[in-house]
């Protein structure tokens, strides 16, 4: 029977010295001999595109140097701020919904489902949405929301809830909701799995002691379980935020960024500038801006993540 648990890092201890000085240094040399070529290749391959992006960002399309002109154009383009706003709105809808729903289900299953078989089944079912390709999820969403053929309107009409088609993808607010709902569908199970695993690390004794002391459902959560889940919330926020910055596939399929630019998130905007309007200089400037801001953000937050690094 499998049991999913969260494994948080133990305080780091020094490696015990396992062998004599000479053997150790020979092994260490071997380590570098294997590691450095592989690592070096990857570092070079990662770095080249970044340098190239910087070079392209200070050139015009015909190769002349233009200094920071591309940056000025990229950052004064209102489309960029629309994209930032859309990305922010998307995050504000999607993150709380996924966390509240995922946490709700994790607590519910943790408290009420005791059968290991049923828990294992729920685990497998929760993994399913995570492995469905986002493109396929986009297709499913299209079948549900599309005008004329979307099944959601058909169902709502048959139930007598609506009498007129709702234009899920062409009214701005509804389009954003439709696009966000797809993200929530796909990623709430991830939040559920992580938090459910976190709940399994809460020691039974402290819960039982609290219950003897008359802790209610709510106080048990706030004073005991929340404490164990805190690092996992951070992990979820960080990973999901990174994913939102790369969201592309399902929106591209469902609305293509429309109506207008309502659902044109940052990655769709960059794609448009570079590969639809062929503004290479501006696209590269944007790429550099995004890469640098993410690296900064990353260095600020990464040390807080509860990962086993040793």
């Amino acid at each position, binding site marked *: 029977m*499998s049991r*999913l*648990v*969260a*494994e*948080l890092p133990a305080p780091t201890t*020094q*490696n015990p010295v396992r062998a004599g000085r000479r053997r150790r240094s020979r092994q*260490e040399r*071997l*380590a570098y001999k*294997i*590691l450095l070529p*592989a*690592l070096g290749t990857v570092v070079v391959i*990662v770095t*080249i595109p970044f340098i190239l*992006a910087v070079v*392209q960002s200070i050139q015009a399309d015909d190769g002349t140097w233009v200094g920071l002109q591309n940056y000025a154009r990229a950052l004064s383009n209102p489309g960029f701020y629309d994209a930032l706003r859309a990305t922010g709105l998307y995050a504000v809808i999607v993150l709380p919904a996924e966390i509240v729903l995922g946490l709700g*289900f994790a607590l*519910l*299953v943790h*408290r*009420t489902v005791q059968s290991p078989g049923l828990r294992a089944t729920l685990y*497998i079912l929760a993994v*399913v949405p*995570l*492995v*469905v*390709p986002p*493109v*396929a999820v986009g*297709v499913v969403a299209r*079948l*549900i929301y599309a005008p004329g*053929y979307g099944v959601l309107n*058909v169902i709502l009409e048959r139930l007598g809830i609506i009498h007129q088609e709702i234009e899920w993808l062409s009214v701005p607010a509804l389009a954003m909701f439709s696009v966000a709902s797809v993200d929530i569908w796909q990623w709430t199970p*991830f939040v559920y*799995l*992580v938090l459910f695993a976190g709940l399994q690390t809460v020691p039974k004794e402290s819960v039982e002691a609290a219950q003897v002391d008359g802790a209610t459902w709510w106080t048990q959560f706030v004073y005991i379980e929340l404490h164990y889940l805190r690092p*996992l919330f951070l*992990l979820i926020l960080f990973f999901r935020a*990174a994913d939102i910055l*790369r969201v*592309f596939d399902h929106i*591209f*399929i469902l609305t293509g960024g429309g109506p207008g630019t309502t659902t044109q998130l940052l*990655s769709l905007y*960059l*794609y448009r500038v570079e*590969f639809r309007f062929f503004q290479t200089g501006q696209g*590269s400037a*944007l*790429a550099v801006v*995004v890469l640098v801001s*993410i690296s900064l953000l990353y260095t600020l937050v*990464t040390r807080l993540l509860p*990962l086993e*690094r*040793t």
Partner: protein
Amino acid sequence: MAIGARLALAVIGLAAAAIVYAFPLYWLIVTSLKSKAELFASTIHLLPHNPTFEPYVSVLIDRGFWVLLKNSVIVCASTVVITIALGLLITYPITRLPVPVGLRVGVLNWALSLRFLPPVAVVIPYFAIVRTLQIYDQPIALIGIYSLFNLPFAIWMLKGFLAEIPLELEDAALVDGANRWTAFRRVLLPLAAPGLLAAATIVFTFAWSEFLFALILTATPNAQTFPVGVQGLVTQFEIIWNDMAASGVIAMTIPLILMVVARKYMVAGLTFGVIRDK
């Protein structure tokens, strides 16, 4: 909350989730089994109605999507081989050999930072490189970038698996006169095999689902992968719903089958080992 109320809440919650998750997938499959004639019928049947495999034949044979499937398999399999090989070259020294703790932590942190690279920002300069090397619209362009983007997962997963195998086992083989390579092949590799398989499966799944790079770096069935084909069916002027649904079903079948193999490691992979299966 009383036990009864809690149970009722659980039943209602899980039933609602079941509908929200099962119905869209059900509807995808039902639509993929519709005949052309039924698409234009005035009433939409919610239950299967004269199901037919016509759309699958239409997608794979008539539209020639089997070529895209083949491309996907080639790209994903090559990505898996390169990613796992590179991953082993990087994780073997830092987990099995005495390197300074700082180096190990540095490598892992660096790998983690790659996880947060936004693909669209990377693909802009990568596109220029691909044009210069004249590998535009060739599988190798995808294999390269997929290997890079999957490497962080591979490094963190392999690190987890290798660290769990006691160093003493290899040391024993070394004392018996085996060299490092033999000890690696005969002792470590068999023990790490389940973990390697899991990592390989997950990398394959990720590569299979990838869409943005494939959209930008390919143009013809010479290198286009299956998701690009699916997208082509969606944004046409007139959507052929049953074909589109069938292509969606095909796209998700392979990851779902692979998930059966790697289900225990899926969450560990996605969370860089924070969530483990005990």
